[in-house]
């Protein structure tokens, strides 16, 4: 798999240094550092409550870590907000689905095109040529994504009415629509059956292969993680206990202990 990739793995693109996050007295993440290489698929694994989603939420700017720094493409990001991160070219999906429930599938994906649409509300209100051309152009892009994800038959359905697995797919579509070169997927396969998981893996690998998108994904299914990721970070109790290629991590004694539930003293 690593032999003839269209986009060979490169230099670190995201560098998380010594971040700590606390909610009141509860420590969610303690002094954690890791980096993500360009074009790689990096998995974050760990038991429930280990702080995986919190880690993504820190990178995304939803939570503000009390300590540490995050650098993207060599630039240390100050005062991170979800908006800034979006503009920098990082997109994501959410653990518990954060779709726009009353909007159609296509509209949800179109929102992903937000940063590619610059008509202001006056241009939209008066349907000036610029607004119309832009709308059409982005609609075509979104139709492509809909076709790629094989959800064309439901594109006009409000997402709130779709089953969970399809909603996960729509959320991936929305993230893809941003054309971000760095994608964070928070449990993209949760609640899916084997068939659906396989399909999702295919999409993820295809995106990574064809577009060179760097991916960070949180996943519980070890089989999936070992199959598709280039590197794996293991979190336990808010600390990183291992970071490396799947085979290496699998053999790590600390990781085995964490998963088998050896008591911490």
């Amino acid at each position, binding site marked *: 798999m690593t032999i003839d990739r269209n986009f060979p793995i490169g230099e670190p693109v995201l560098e998380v240094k010594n971040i700590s996050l606390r909610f009141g007295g509860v420590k969610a993440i303690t002094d954690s550092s890791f980096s993500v290489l360009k074009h790689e698929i990096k998995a974050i694994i760990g038991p429930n409550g280990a702080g995986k989603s919190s880690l993504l939420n820190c990178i995304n700017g939803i939570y503000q870590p009390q300590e540490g720094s995050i650098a993207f493409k060599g630039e240390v990001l100050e005062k991170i907000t979800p908006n800034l991160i979006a503009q920098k070219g990082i997109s994501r999906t959410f653990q518990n689905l954060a779709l726009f429930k009353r909007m159609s599938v296509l509209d949800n994906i179109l929102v992903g095109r937000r940063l590619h649409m610059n008509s202001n509300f006056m241009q939209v209100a008066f349907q000036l040529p610029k607004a119309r051309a832009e709308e059409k152009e982005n609609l075509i892009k979104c*139709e492509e994504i809909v076709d790629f994800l094989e959800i064309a038959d439901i594109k*006009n359905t409000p997402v709130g009415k779709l089953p969970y697995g399809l909603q996960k797919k729509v959320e991936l579509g929305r993230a893809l629509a941003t054309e971000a070169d760095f994608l964070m997927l928070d449990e993209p396969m949760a609640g899916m059956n084997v068939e659906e998981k396989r399909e999702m893996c295919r999409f993820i690998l295809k995106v990574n292969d064809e577009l060179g998108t760097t991916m960070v994904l949180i996943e519980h299914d070890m089989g999936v993680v070992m199959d598709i990721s280039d590197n794996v970070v293991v979190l336990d109790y808010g600390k990183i206990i291992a970071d490396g290629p799947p085979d290496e991590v699998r053999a790590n004694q600390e990781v085995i202990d964490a998963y088998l539930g050896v008591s911490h003293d």
Partner: protein
Amino acid sequence: MEQKVSNNNSFMGYTRSDLTNFLIAMILSFVAIPLVVQTDYWYSSILIPWLCLALAAIGQQIVMGYAGQLALGAAGFMAAGAFACFNLILRVPDIPFFVALGLSGLVAAAFGILFGLPSLRVRGIYLMVATLASQFFIVWMIDKFGWFKNYDTSGIITAQDIVILGKPFTSPLEMYLVILVVVTVLTILAVNMARGSTGRNWMAVRDMDIAAESMGISLLKTKLQAFAICAFYCGVAGALFAFTYLKSLEPVAFDIKLSFKILFMVILGGLGTISGAFIGAAFILLFPVLLNSVGNNVFHGAIDATIISSIEQVVFGVLIIVFMIYEPLGMAKLWGNIKQRFSRNK
């Protein structure tokens, strides 16, 4: 909800059924009604207030139904628009009516931005309380500073006549046509925004603000924009309401009861649809008329007028509860369901 069509059968993004509906509405409102309806009562007591309040309801719809911000102060923005229009016509010589109207909307929009600021920090009932501040403050300010009322002490100021290109528009039919033009234009603009990227941004913020932000939507800009546009629509509606329906300017006409009325129009009409604003406004306006005529014709005035207005309140309240339980998307959705059932049966 709204159908996206990417084929070539559309004109400027409108589907064929959009255009037919639009054409029917235009023929009905510009040709059929003026030809058929001859009594002034229908214009001055039904059609004129309906269009004015529907316009305000579109504003409320934008901020609440689309952007999901629970605001309760539409009447305050209407008051700002009405008194801005009065003062512009009074103090700026030869200002064209439509220019004054547009500027009034902008004045209201400025208030909208100011009182929309709390929406950046809070939501739900917290925001509702913050917007109540605008309701009470604006009406108080107009009432207490004589300049706004041109130092009139009688408390009731007669609105100026509407003059367009030297021609006064004073009969009910003429005023109806003026309003109709304004409402038509603003409705088209609202539909365009609602269906375009502007509306998508609003709805994204409404449905899941954190995800919207992660897609690059600025919550600050989007919320304030919705508040500004809402207030603009309310401001224009307030000016028209004062100049054509009330024919006078009194701050008390824009009290919190009117804000509640507009809120109800949007909730009952259907949150998140422009047509809901029209349906809701029609219902809130026509139901009391119906109730009164039942009171007069069936019971021959045996029922006290205050009882009738109390019953009206109870019915509105019950309907809100019933809709919240059974069809939170209101009458517009009900109507859609009925249409769908009929077309399926064919």
